[in-house]
């Protein structure tokens, strides 16, 4: 019986994916016929399909362990095989940035989603990680090649170490002011990169070693896998935090910090740890990015639009969930890149308009909203037929009243 149920759910999942993808493809083909035909919309299409798959997987595989496992394997296999399936340099480049943002948002979510402290300046650690790697390569004359990837965690650690005192200061203030203090710290980072010309070369920037051996379309591939690895690491960290005692403390802080503290949750250390872990992930992303781009400049490594993009993706997908950040990145990044490339004049207006629309219609983010609707639908289906799990009431016993909601 359970097998058929699993099979049925799997079939349903596949149907949902095919149907929604088909629908989206149709809409895109009708709205942008030229772009669609010329293949420019391919990255957007692919990411939409993957996003739908992730969402569907979340909703339908919720209870069933075997489907969860199978779905996860399929997604992983697809991600691993991606550069082989779509070797085009432009596509893998967009994929790189999509995965990069997915990793950053997942890291950011550790602090913002779980504890409710929204940092709009964590990209300062992206810049720090980027510059750290560039400086290490320069001062130790590191040759180009795969070896540099081993230095990425080092760069990340440097960013994380700086995050400790910075986080301690930033977390002293209330949540509203916290947002702004993080922004201020971001600009301090950017300005220091500009002004400490002895160290950072100021606006001239620094170059990183260029791996000539990786020619043509292959160039993007090592970077793709590096960032994929980082994303998987971030997801694992996010998952583990969510299910640990520590993560529970963070969620309690989000709901009622004072009460949590009163019950013994170590609020200060918890928040700081989340802050630093986010900095670590984002720092490593910055390092990989700097190697990918080949050069760092104050304005590029400390890009203020990244901060808001991260928050947007997190919020869009659903803060506080594990898949939400990924869905957000999948939906926004290829779209953003395609818009910027094809409609540079109208890009900001369209992007801003889309943003507003989504924010107003789905204020809790895509995944939570859909999950809630799904739960309601299932609860409705369940109440229509007898089942073993009684959700609400329990029978009255001697001395105890009935529990009725």
């Amino acid at each position, binding site marked *: 019986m359970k097998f058929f149920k699993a099979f049925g759910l799997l079939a349903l999942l596949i149907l949902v994916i095919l149907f929604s993808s088909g629908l989206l493809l149709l809409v895109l083909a009708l709205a942008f016929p030229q772009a669609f035909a010329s293949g420019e919309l391919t990255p957007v299409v692919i990411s939409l399909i993957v996003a739908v798959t992730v969402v569907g997987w979340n909703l339908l595989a919720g209870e069933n362990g075997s489907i969860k496992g199978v779905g996860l394997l399929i997604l992983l296999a697809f991600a691993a095989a991606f550069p082989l399936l779509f070797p085009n340099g432009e596509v893998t480049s967009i994929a790189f940035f999509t995965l990069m943002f997915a990793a950053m948002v997942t890291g950011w979510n550790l602090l913002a989603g779980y504890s409710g402290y929204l940092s709009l300046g964590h990209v300062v650690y992206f810049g720090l990680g980027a510059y750290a790697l560039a400086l290490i390569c320069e001062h130790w004359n590191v040759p180009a090649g795969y070896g540099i990837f081993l230095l990425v965690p080092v760069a990340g650690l440097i960013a994380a170490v700086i995050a400790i005192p910075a986080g301690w200061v930033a977390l002293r203030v209330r949540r509203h002011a916290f947002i702004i203090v993080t922004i201020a710290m971001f600009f301090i980072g950017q300005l220091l990169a500009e002004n400490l010309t002895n160290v950072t070369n100021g606006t001239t920037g620094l170059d990183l070693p260029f791996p000539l051996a990786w020619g043509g379309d292959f160039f993007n591939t090592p970077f793709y896998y590096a960032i994929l690895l980082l994303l998987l690491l971030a997801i694992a960290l996010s998952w583990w935090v969510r*299910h640990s005692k*520590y993560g529970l403390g963070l969620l309690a802080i989000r*709901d009622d910090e004072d009460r949590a503290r009163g*019950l*013994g949750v*170590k609020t200060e250390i918890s928040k700081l740890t989340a802050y630093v872990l986010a900095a670590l992930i984002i720092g490593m992303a910055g390092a990989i990015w700097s190697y990918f781009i080949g050069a760092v400049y104050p304005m590029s490594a400390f890009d203020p639009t990244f901060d808001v993009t991260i928050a947007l993706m997190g919020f869009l997908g659903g803060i506080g969930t594990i898949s939400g950040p990924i869905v957000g990145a999948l939906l926004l990044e290829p779209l953003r890149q395609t818009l910027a490339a094809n409609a540079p004049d109208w890009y900001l207006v369209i992007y801003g308009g889309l943003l507003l629309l989504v924010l107003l219609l789905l204020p809790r983010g895509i995944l939570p909203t859909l999950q809630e609707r799904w739960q309601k639908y299932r609860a409705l289906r369940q109440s229509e037929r007898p089942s073993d799990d*009684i959700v609400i009431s329990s029978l009255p016993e001697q001395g105890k009243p009935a*529990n009725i*909601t």
Partner: protein
Amino acid sequence: MSLLEAQDVCKAFGGIQALDTCSISVAEGSITGLIGPNGSGKTTLFNVMTGYERVDSGSVRFQDRSITNATPDKVFRLGIGRTFQLTRVFPRLTVLENMHVAAQRSDLKGQLSRWSSTHEHRRALELLDFVGLTSLKDLPAGNLSYGQRKLLEFAFILVADPRVILLDEPAGGVNPTMLNYLTGRIRELNQRGVTFLVVEHNMEFVMGLCDKVMVMHRGTKIAEGTPEEVRANPAVLEAYLGD
């Protein structure tokens, strides 16, 4: 033996003297009630005794040791639990998760392990059963009715195995059936050795439950005794009717 006491506590907010040389004493093993008209300082006294407010002068003692101005989490760890008038639970966490937040372990290993697999899990389930919320354990606490939230709050302060529990208006906004249920739970815990200090407006509830009652008025204690003694005390009547 006095388990918990406040001695000559004074506390002012701006121009208002909320507590004026207030002294009360809670005997071990008792269910003590604390009543008084609105504004008499009952909740402020609670706040001061559990670390949510600092005293201007005076002291608070637990088991003959001073806990004056201790932080709320320290107070909680010492074995003094406290509920709130407007229940403070974690609305986005499930009922079961709420229970686990209260069961905080300070060691690193405890922090890193999956919360659902610790031995505290069993205890959390036991306590949920004690208050009758087992069937709701996977619902977000925010979905619970007011009365159920009160029960949840009650349950999670039990996690720390407190010696004394301060209940702040437990009967407020709760229907009679639930109230009976709550009374039953309190009595049962009392029989197991837990001391209670209950602030309440509902006279029936207090008189029926408590073995000793203290009356506050204008920031200080004006009477104490058994429920019958207090009911007959003219000073008490005047306090309630006079203002």
